[in-house]
């Protein structure tokens, strides 16, 4: 069996786990703890390294292997582990500092100024006169 099989399958599993997660995002269905995604990434990474280990007969074989096939296998593993590691790193960045708001329920929104999409100055005072859902969000991306 080609030593590329399991590194490739593992990479496809990692990519599929990522795409599943990204597919959930615009549908607002991202779970707080994305267990399915994390399991898929872990499985994919394990398939890659396990397949490479098996194909070359252990760590000595891995170190001794040198050639185009081995290089491609290592690149596949690097891509898979990179994508999986990137996701787990992103999970460490997800928390936001809450509880520091200067306003509370029952208080009026203070007069603050921003710009609309045409560049004209707008004020939070202009929100009075009708009910408003006022959202603060991270940005256009």
């Amino acid at each position, binding site marked *: 069996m080609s030593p590329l099989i399991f590194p490739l399958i593992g990479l496809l599993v990692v990519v599929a786990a990522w*795409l599943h997660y*990204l*597919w959930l*995002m*615009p549908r*607002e269905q*991202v779970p*707080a703890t994305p267990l399915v995604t994390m399991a898929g990434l872990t499985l994919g990474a394990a398939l890659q390294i396990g397949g490479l280990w098996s194909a070359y007969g252990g760590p000595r074989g891995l170190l001794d292997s040198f050639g185009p096939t081995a290089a491609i296998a290592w690149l596949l593993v690097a891509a898979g582990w990179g994508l999986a590691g990137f996701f787990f790193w*992103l999970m460490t*960045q*997800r*928390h*936001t*500092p*809450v*509880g*520091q*708001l*200067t*306003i*509370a*329920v*029952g*208080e*009026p*929104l*203070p007069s*603050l*100024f*921003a*710009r*609309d*999409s*045409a*560049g004209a100055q*707008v004020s*939070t*005072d202009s*929100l*009075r*006169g*009708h*009910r*408003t*859902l*006022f*959202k*603060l*969000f*991270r*940005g*256009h*991306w």
Partner: protein
Amino acid sequence: MAALSERGIAVVALSKDTPEQATLQEARDGLQRVRLWADPQLAVIKSLGALHRGAVEFKTWLVSTVPIGVPTGFAEMAVPTTLLLDEDGVVRWIDQADDYRIRSDDARIAAALEQIGW
């Protein structure tokens, strides 16, 4: 969004984007019922105590409906926060996400509207 319109509730969304970026987003996302406000100096965001320092910033491309994002660095931006304001500008409900991926969705807002009798 349609449910908010039906109840006569306006939607205004503010971020650290520039007016130009807000214009691009309006066109890209077809935002006809949402007014985007730009706060590139973070003045409103800081005044409200909703600042997130060192947040991961992304550049995103939409492939079909799947957003593919690449981190471009760390930046200051808003903590995702949702307020319901009455006709007098008084805050009637606040929701703030301690996880930027999980924000006020339609179901949560609908429950809030029920809770405050709107």
